[in-house]
């Protein structure tokens, strides 16, 4: 009996996936559980496995093509089984996706192209009418939201009421205005990756409806830096980074301040007793936030090892969904890139994120005399729906005490 191969939801938030590579050619025998293809989700590259035995009779989409969750991307059947009904029922596979199309002038090494202008094979992947509920269409019309610019959260990417409302609230209605023609040699087109789409959607959700304010403080990190050096002198087992010390201090301070360790859930606020600390990691594809679970209960060494491991996996796109979901509060550090101070965007439904700046030798007044100290600026973004100014400030006071007296982290 034939088995349809569906684009499966391989992450909790995945709405569509890009088929990066078919691991099995058409005609290959497959068993249930075999890896058929690699799929780029909104967060990582995951494996799509066979759900039945037989022969992979048909690959219904080409490599590089994006397909909505729930769509049929292939057929597994007996070698001689008639699958014509299945093939005709499914929509024709869109043309091969646009790999980054370099302009001809920028790629002199390209093999001789067929005569004539290079036909753009970049038919928009999985194009067609936007799936939407009748109510969503009516609301979109009433509120002037461009439905095509709204990512649907319903089955198969259907745009439903809540999506339109979120778009309307976030002012995300895309006003489509065609760019004036520019010579193709001046730029390189990159199709949006899933991760970029997700970043856009999530951050637009954030900066729009979340009333954010910012608290900045400058901490004296001299003792923390000294402690790190003393520890490192004990041997490799004791080598940690300043960032690890910051993560440990934030986690410990959060445990003492559950009022900032919370999720805004629309109709309620969920305060967490456990601290799952998200750490923003820059990758070539964009930002991802792996999670150190129960960070407040872990020692510096564990935090150090875990953060290094997670950052490596993130850069290699090896994170599994459970490693980047569930954070209760996040930290973003651009200190290593000589940023003195910045504001980070809250990752909803979290209510706060801490932006860490660079460590700097700074002249400050200590006991009436000018001294050079290691100083570091942190800026906390707070969702005012949950965290009031004084509440955030108290958390930062605790964090200051811990980082300026790092011996406290031992207790």
């Amino acid at each position, binding site marked *: 009996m034939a088995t349809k191969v569906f684009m499966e939801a391989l992450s909790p938030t995945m709405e569509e996936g890009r088929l990066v590579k078919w691991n099995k050619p058409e005609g290959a025998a497959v068993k249930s559980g075999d890896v058929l293809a690699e799929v780029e989700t909104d967060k990582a590259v995951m494996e799509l496995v066979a759900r039945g035995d037989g022969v992979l009779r048909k690959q219904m989409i080409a490599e590089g093509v994006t397909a909505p969750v729930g769509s049929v991307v292939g057929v597994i059947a007996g070698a001689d089984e008639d699958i014509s009904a299945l093939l005709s029922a499914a929509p024709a596979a869109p043309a091969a996706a646009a790999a980054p199309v370099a302009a001809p002038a920028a790629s002199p090494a390209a093999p001789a192209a067929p005569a004539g202008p290079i036909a753009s094979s970049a038919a928009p992947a999985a194009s067609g009418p936007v799936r939407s*509920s*009748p*109510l*969503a*269409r*009516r609301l979109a019309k009433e509120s002037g939201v461009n439905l095509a610019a709204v990512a649907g*959260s*319903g*089955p198969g990417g259907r745009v*439903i*009421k809540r999506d339109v409302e979120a778009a309307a609230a976030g002012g995300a209605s895309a006003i489509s205005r065609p760019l004036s023609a520019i010579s193709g040699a001046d730029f390189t087109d990159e199709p949006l990756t899933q991760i970029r789409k997700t970043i856009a959607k999530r951050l637009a959700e954030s900066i729009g409806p979340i009333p954010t304010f910012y608290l900045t403080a400058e901490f004296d990190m001299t003792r923390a830096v000294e402690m790190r050096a003393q520890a490192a002198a004990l041997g490799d087992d004791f080598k940690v980074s300043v960032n690890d010390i910051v993560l440990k201090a934030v986690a410990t301070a959060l445990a003492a301040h559950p009022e900032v360790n919370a999720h805004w859930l629309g*109709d309620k606020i969920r305060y967490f007793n456990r601290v799952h600390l998200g750490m923003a990691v820059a990758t070539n594809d964009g930002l991802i936030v792996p999670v150190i679970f129960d960070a407040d209960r872990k020692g510096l060494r564990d935090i150090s090892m875990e953060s290094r491991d997670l950052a490596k996996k993130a850069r290699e796109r090896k994170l599994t969904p459970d490693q980047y979901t569930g954070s209760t509060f996040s930290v973003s550090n651009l200190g290593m890139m000589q940023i003195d101070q910045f504001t980070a965007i809250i990752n909803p439904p979290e209510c706060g994120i801490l932006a860490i700046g660079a460590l700097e030798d700074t002249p400050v007044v200590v006991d009436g005399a000018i001294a050079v100290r290691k100083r570091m600026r942190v800026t906390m973004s707070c969702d005012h729906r949950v965290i009031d100014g004084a509440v955030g400030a108290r958390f930062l006071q605790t964090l200051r005490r811990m980082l300026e007296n790092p011996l406290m982290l031992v207790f």
Partner: protein
Amino acid sequence: MPIITYREALNQALREEMSRDDRVYLMGEEVGVYNGAYKVSKGLLEEFGENRVVDSPIAELGFAGIGVGSAMAGLRPVIEFMTWNFALLAIDQVVNSAAKMLYMSGGQFNVPIVFRGPNGAALQLGAQHSQAFESWLAHIPGIKVLSPGTPYDAKGLLKSAIRDDNPVVVLEGEMLYNTKGEVPDHEYLIPLGKADRKREGGDCSIITSGKMALVAMQVADQLAKEDIHVDVIDLLTIRPMDVEAIYESVRKTNRAVVLEEGWEICGIGAQVVDFIQRECFDDLDAPVIRVHQADVPMPYAKNLEKIAKPDAAKTIAAVKQVMYRS
């Protein structure tokens, strides 16, 4: 307010209407000496005598026909079928005589008759005795179809049915006769063709009637604990259907589940969905989902019977599905 059973509520309705109007009489199998197969007519023979409480032979077509004829001649019969499964034998009198007479006589003969009895599945009575006939009957122009789920609704609707000048079918429930509910001391009538909102909520509409209204209320109470608030519309009258009540609810909630006791194909739910899609298309945020009996003759085996019937768990799953919460 006194709490009485569904059976007692129907008994009160019959007694009150027979006392009020001496043209009203009750006829059917075992309604007299035996006090009714389900004791709905308890004490009526004693009170009103053999002319008005008539034990019939086991001949549904015959006594249904006598009922129609006597209604044409000026009486107001209440015909009790021991169950609607047996009424299949009398369906010609219901459909071809009672429902058609006013129309085909050019308005000369109206037929003020009530056909009533238990409908739908009870427990392990087998395929032939476990059928819900709402859609069969509601299909026919010329008869009104009522499906009360509570004692209050049963009494108020049966009284209105007896006073109606045209044929009315009342679908009761074997599993309902023992259920209890508040019924006021004073006299009241429930108008035909009006739905009743059994629970108020803004998240999802459940449109239902009869025995399933009880399931819907149970579902609403359970989902309220998860902060999902269901609007339960109990149709009470299946034909003519109170479409305005359906529209008002769906326009408020943007999503609907239609719950019925019978089969899926050409069921009452299919008609409700049709009304909704025509009049509330732009209000819908999800396809309307139906909950109904499995498309098989009702199994006798207890475990299979349970699986085949619509229930609270299936309805909750449907509500979550239309709310994109599953």
